[in-house]
């Protein structure tokens, strides 16, 4: 099962980026389909076919373009662009910290798009989204820091090749990352800003005023982002590719399971719990590692 690292090594920087740009939405869409199927089964429904997310996206592109103001879709385009770019950086093996910063910029553009439409629901969604960003950002940065402490490099390519499983050195960081991953995947209990479920009290929150192709772009960006996040999960077991892939999938299913079992938190609890978990679980891990060196 060394086919993953071997194939990866044989590709050039640009080829890796292109591979990500082409393959990630397919994989991401597929995962979204499995998500919906699995969620339906957990709820005792039959659920849509696994290919449904692709049909949805295609359908959205054929819809009429309706906007509140003409500028609103531009930040969304930038959101997609930056998400794809940060993913491409990651899978090209570039700097993990740079990836993290780029991803934060992508998120900023999504929020700015939602702010600029001037709608109360969308505004509330955007405010909540920034709170979520504030909640998960420290942990995301600490993941990069922790991986650097173990491997001595910020480069994804080096981190992936590290021979000892990172998980052994970074159990706390991994646990903290799992926690905020629920926010990043937009799963309950942290789906405050927008939700796939019908029970949202602020309509569709962030995406209230986005429809048709723009909504499809948001969806596709989300697929890219999910693949990138699972890529980071993969790094924790990069020394054993097979196990790492299995773990990434398990983590994804775990998030679906959590999604099914929790009611939505308020922003206060979201922020407090994320920061506390980060401080209590991940920070000691970082401190201990720094004393070991």
């Amino acid at each position, binding site marked *: 099962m060394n086919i993953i690292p071997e194939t990866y090594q044989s590709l050039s920087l640009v080829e890796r980026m292109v591979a990500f740009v082409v393959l990630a939405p397919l994989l991401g869409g597929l995962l979204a389909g499995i998500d919906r199927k699995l969620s339906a089964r957990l709820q005792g429904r039959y659920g849509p076919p696994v290919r449904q997310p692709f049909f949805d996206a295609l359908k959205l592109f054929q819809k*009429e*373009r*309706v*906007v*509140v*103001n*003409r*500028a609103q*879709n*531009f930040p969304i*385009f*930038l959101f997609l*662009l930056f998400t794809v*770019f940060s993913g491409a*950086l990651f899978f090209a093996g*570039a*700097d993990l*910290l*740079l990836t993290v*910063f*780029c991803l*934060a*910029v992508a998120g*900023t553009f999504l*929020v*700015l798009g*939602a*702010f*600029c*439409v*001037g*709608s*109360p*629901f*969308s*505004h509330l969604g*955007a*405010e909540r989204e*920034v*709170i979520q*960003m*504030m*909640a998960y*950002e*420290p*942990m995301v*940065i*600490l993941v990069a*820091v922790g991986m650097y*402490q173990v491997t001595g490099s*910020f480069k994804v390519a080096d981190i992936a090749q590290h021979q000892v499983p990172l998980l052994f050195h970074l159990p706390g960081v991994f646990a903290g990352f799992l926690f905020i991953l629920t926010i990043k995947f937009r799963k309950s209990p942290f789906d405050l800003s927008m939700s796939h479920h019908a029970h949202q009290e602020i*309509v569709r929150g962030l995406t*209230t*005023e986005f429809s048709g192709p723009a909504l499809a772009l948001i969806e596709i960006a989300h697929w890219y982002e999910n693949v990138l996040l699972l890529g980071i999960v993969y790094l924790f077991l990069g020394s054993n590719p097979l196990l790492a892939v299995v773990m990434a999938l398990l983590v994804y299913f775990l998030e679906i399971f959590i999604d099914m079992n929790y009611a939505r938190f308020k*922003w206060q609890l979201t922020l407090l719990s994320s920061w506390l978990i980060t401080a209590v679980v991940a*920070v000691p891990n*970082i*401190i201990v*590692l*720094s004393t070991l060196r």
Partner: protein
Amino acid sequence: MYPLIFLVLFPLLIAFLALALPRGLLIKKVIGVLANAVLCGVPVYLLAAHLGQEATYYQAESHLVDAAMPLIEVVIAVYLIYVSVRSRRYLPVLLVVLQSVAILAFELTGGHTLEVEHNLFVDQFSIIMALIVGCIGGAICLFAFGYMPEFHHHYQEVPDRRRYFAFLLYLFLAAMFGIVFSNNLMWIYFFWEITTLCSFLLIGYKNDKPSQDSAFKALNMNLIGGVAFAVGLVYLYNASHVMELDKVLGLDKGMVLLPAVCIVFAGLAKSAQFPFSSWLTGAMVAPTPVSALLHSSTMVKAGVYIILRLAPVLQNTAASKVLTMIGGVSFLITALIAVSQRNAKKVLAYSTISNLGLIVACAGVNTDAAVWSALVLIIFHAVAKSLLFLCVGVIEYKVGSRDIEDMDYLIMRMPKLATCMLIGMAGMYIAPFGMVIAKFATLKAFVNESPVMTVILAYGSAATLFFWVKWMGKVMSIKGGASLEVVEDRVSRWEWTTLGILAAATVAVCVAFPFIAFQVINPYLREVFGQAPIVDTFNVYVILILMISLWIVLPLGLLYYRTLGKGIRTVATYLGGGNIDDVSYEGAMGKAGEIEIKSYYMEKYFGENVLFPVGVYLALTFVFIMFGVAAL
């Protein structure tokens, strides 16, 4: 040597001209514009002349100066005592007396035997500072030409002392040039005291109760720093008979650690770190050019300048670790407090303290990579923050409020100004622009040296992101279906020119970033540390590609959505199905209401009254520890 002396004396000349020439003369404005061009041009010339050169030291001996400095110090002391007694405040009197006694006793006893080899010097760091003082300080003075008439129009009751105001601004610049070019510590101290005096008088310009209170607060805190500075100098001279910045760095640590800590302490007060932060937030009562000047190019930058200069003395001591923590506490706590602030100027003030905290923390770590980040932070922060302050100053009069909640739809009401603001904010927190590059570098600098700081940086960055994004969203929001009155045509040409210059400068420093990093900062670091941080070339390229592509994508995108987007159907925002028009809805009982959109401020958690004391007490503890470990 002459450019250095010129840079100190020229603003002084302009200051006296500003005071002497009567108001309203055309020639006065012409002189002002020319003076600012010169102030900008000479540091650029210095940069060009010193590119790739090592630090140069000059003797610049002058008995006249040696005689005049104590005399002026005495005059200042007497004046400060006079104004303090007049307004029945006695703490400054005590501090001034303490300080003067220390320095005068020294001048009269040891001063005669004092041998100073080099009074002036210039290196890349000085030149960076001179560029910031000259270009940004000069631009702010230009802004003041257009701003002050409006200020007095708004505040009829404030006595019109515009000439005096201009005098103080240029005097301030002269003192800043003095600080960055002096090698003689007595000279630095002299200019240091002048900045304290200028800031006191500028903050109190309005002369009403709140301004007086804030001015005296600033005075007190800076005088406390000044006392420490004076004591540090006296101790230093008695211990080592050295009074020169470059020689101090070469001395035995046991001898110079305590004086260095004293001066660093003065630097903390000047750069408004905890426990001294309250003077900078109080200084908001002053006219906008003052705040912009204090926050971006002068005063607070003088504080971090001296800290960075003396950081090598502290290296590998416990004091440096404590210094890092003081910077870290200031960075984190003020970033969190900024989340809860609605007053635009206060948000900017807290963000300033926060960034300075990061610079101080870098000084505490004091590796080549950390100092690299500190210098990059100083540059980017100065440009973007001055732009933002001036924008808020303009908005304050055109919109009639400095409350962020009143800035909705700013992009419709003042499109050009909002664009300037967005450039400034992007410069502050959106990658790949300035400040984010700096934070990125800072994190990497901390990761090996100080894990606690990486954690602090992680949390602080998250808070920073929050308060900038929500403010940016406020400015960018668009009111559906309505056309609002554009109110920016009343902004004067002086103000537009300055805003234009600073917005262009914000973009320019980002474009020139590789040049600044490799040609200016790295030679300085090689001189100090013997090596410069190895910057990953790939990352630099990625950042450059990002920047360039953003500048292509942004205008093109805006063009596209403005012209080609006409086939799109425009509808009203969704208001729960009860729309009357785009912005009003029919509520319960058939009552009509208009939508109002407000942001989160989370005052219960991040409020000033909750967190400020925490910062003060934590930092105060660290300050005591710092003195303690230095004295042992």
